[in-house]
């Protein structure tokens, strides 16, 4: 029975990077889209 700690750490690092990265990216994209929509709505109101 060997010590496979480096494999375990590697596997958890990959899982955290992929899932955490996806959540981080989607949160940024959502916030950016919301900001742009609010800007466009404000622009639409001020130009009327």
């Amino acid at each position, binding site marked *: 029975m060997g010590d496979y700690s480096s494999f375990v750490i590697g596997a958890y690092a990959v899982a955290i990077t992929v899932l955490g990265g996806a959540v981080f990216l989607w949160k940024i994209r*959502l916030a950016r889209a919301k900001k742009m929509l609010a800007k466009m709505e404000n622009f639409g109101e001020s130009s009327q």
Partner: protein
Amino acid sequence: MKILEKICSPLGWLSLGLLGYGIWHVLNTPADFQQGNSVAILFVHVSAAKMALFFYLVLVAASIRYLWKKGDTADTIAEASVHVGAAFSVVTLATGSIWGKPMWGTWWAWDARLTSMLMLLIIYVGLIALRGALEDRQRGAKAAAIFALIGAVDLPLIHFSVVWWRTLHQPASLGNGAPKLVGPMLTTLAVMGVAFTVLGTYMLVLKTLEVREQRRLHDKEEEHFHNG
């Protein structure tokens, strides 16, 4: 969709707490007498695999709903579930490969379970590419829904691959005839399974909101463009 905005943040914190609790369980689970501490990889691998398959079922349900009723919400959920399912498929394949190296002596084998799982990831990526390739949203949604239903053939192939063929991959860890998991390992797998289910739900909610806002933004831009 209002309810999704309300539950999104609490779900995120809940999944983070459950994952922390799950990792605490992993750290306190004894090493397997054959696999040693590499068994810790399987708690993530099995949970991620369940989620990768579960989100394809969500995709199938949303695609049927879209083809039947033409609802925009069903299509938004279908598009979101593809991205979430793809993320879990990557984790499943990567962690399986990392576990395989010390246990099987190889990173990869063209075994029925591994190959059918890789096919699932290819289908998810294909669905993302298909939507991106078709400019008209309705056409893209219809094509993706039909492709998703055809791709569902892969689900029984993945599930029964270890039964139908002699594979390097071991049989199912849970269910009838499965090898018995001892107390602490079963508890850890159950906790990680619940944590991944909550995390997956959170990711689906977050991605659904993101897809909806991106679509609204795209529509607004089109409107501005046409109005000059």
